[in-house]
């Protein structure tokens, strides 16, 4: 067994000029965890995500994915990302749900390489996982907000990442669609050991699926409320693998 987490953050600090946003943050996400990061506006949630995604460089501290420093993962980042602005795309874009999901594999395949038959199979299975197979040939703009979000979730999952990061995944969705997304995430967690980091400004709804909750409050990361909320998702350390630890297609 390996005690390293999927994602580890150690003594991470970041400032915009003289304004400290994150101060010595520590966080460890293990395989099968769903970690909810909550906090008010301006608490540094987005900055933390940008640091994890490599869009910003920390002042001090480090971030590791399976013992690999994130700075060294230059060409392929094994993180799936669902942006808060994912559904703010051009609604008239002439692409089907399947084409959008397929685009999530582009970086993993690399330049000048075409998708293989295995890739196409993975795309179909991912669509099935998010219950969107029957809508695969529909234009993305013709789907409802909740369905679009499921397609974007599939796009984040299709590259079989080590962890997925969801930034305010239910913002702008109606109550039913929010429940559907959370139910889907809980299902993926239980059946496919989905490891996820979910950032949200409110905990409502999220608490039912989160295995851990972290409150980010301006300069410090308070882990006082760090607890296991979902008894079904016990902490288990995964064997360190070369490929995807959570999605076994």
């Amino acid at each position: 067994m390996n005690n390293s987490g999927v994602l580890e953050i150690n003594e991470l600090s970041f400032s915009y000029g003289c304004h400290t946003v994150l101060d010595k943050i520590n966080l460890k996400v293990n395989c099968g965890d769903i970690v909810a990061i909550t906090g008010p506006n301006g608490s540094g949630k987005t900055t933390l995500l940008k640091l994890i995604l490599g869009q910003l460089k920390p002042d001090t501290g480090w971030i590791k994915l399976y013992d690999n420093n994130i700075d060294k993962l230059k060409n392929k980042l094994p993180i799936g990302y669902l942006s808060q602005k994912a559904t703010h795309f051009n609604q008239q874009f002439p692409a089907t749900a399947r084409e959008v999901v397929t685009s999530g594999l582009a970086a993993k395949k690399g330049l000048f390489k075409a998708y293989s038959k295995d890739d196409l199979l993975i795309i179909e299975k991912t669509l099935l996982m998010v219950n969107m197979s029957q809508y695969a040939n529909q234009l993305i703009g013709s789907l409802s907000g909740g369905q679009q979000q499921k397609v974007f979730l599939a796009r984040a999952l299709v590259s079989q990442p080590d962890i997925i990061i969801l930034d305010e995944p239910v913002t702008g969705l109606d109550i039913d669609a929010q429940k559907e997304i959370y139910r889907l995430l809980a299902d993926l967690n239980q059946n496919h050991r989905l490891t996820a980091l979910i950032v949200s400004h409110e905990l409502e709804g999220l608490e039912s699926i989160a295995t851990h909750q972290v409150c980010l409050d301006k300069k410090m990361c308070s882990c006082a409320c760090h607890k296991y909320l979902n008894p079904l998702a016990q902490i288990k350390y995964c064997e360190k693998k070369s490929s995807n630890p959570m999605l076994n297609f």
Partner: protein
Amino acid sequence: MEIFQYDFMYRAFLIGIIVGLICPVIGLFIALRRMSMMTDALAHVCLSGVAAGLITGIPPVLSAALFATGGGLVIEKLRKRFSSYSEISIAIIMSTGVALGAIILDLGKGYGNNLMAYLFGSIVAISPNDILIITLTGSMVLILIFFLRKELFSIAFDEENARISRIPVDLINTLFTIITALTIAMSIRVIGILMVSSLMILPVAAAMSIAKSFKNAVVIAVIFAQIAIVIGLFASFYINLAPGGSIVMTSVVLLIGTFVCKAILPKRP
């Protein structure tokens, strides 16, 4: 048919088919990235290139390609500098292109008639040299688009996500700008500097309004462009119209036709 008894018409159709294949494909990515005005700016830079070519004796299509590539790369740089007002970069390059062209032409007086063939397109002026340059460049452009199609799609759909997933967005954008510049430069022989952007956008606009998928949009846009070019060249030959004008007006009719058909025909479930 009388039209095919002339070598220059064969050349015009050959170039027209190549241009009609590439322009809508490039145009689709440009339109989806909301950069339609970039094609106009690069076409205006081609004016300087053509003027320089006419004066120096370099094949104007080649000098236009060099100028347009340079202009495209400067647009990319300026877009980053004015990231919140990226359209400024287009205005700067467009006005610089026209101004430079006017100065170069003024320095070498007497090229006005030749220039008209590049402004509005000319089917009789296409030389065997043009055929060689355009076939080689067109093949290279098509091969690059084919191999970069998945990255171009990802960037067009969601550039932020493409960057996060570590697609080399800046490299692809630079390559795409060069491809666009080369496409515009080789298209001006048939369709003309003033109308080349129309061939990139009009078939795409028609295709986007009826396409059921991205692949579908590419195919429809290419078919519409080919129809416009064939009808435009026939009209140019038999009615003695400027080829650029007749090709663009055919594209406009096709666009209106798709809008009308879409409004009349019942929606499929």
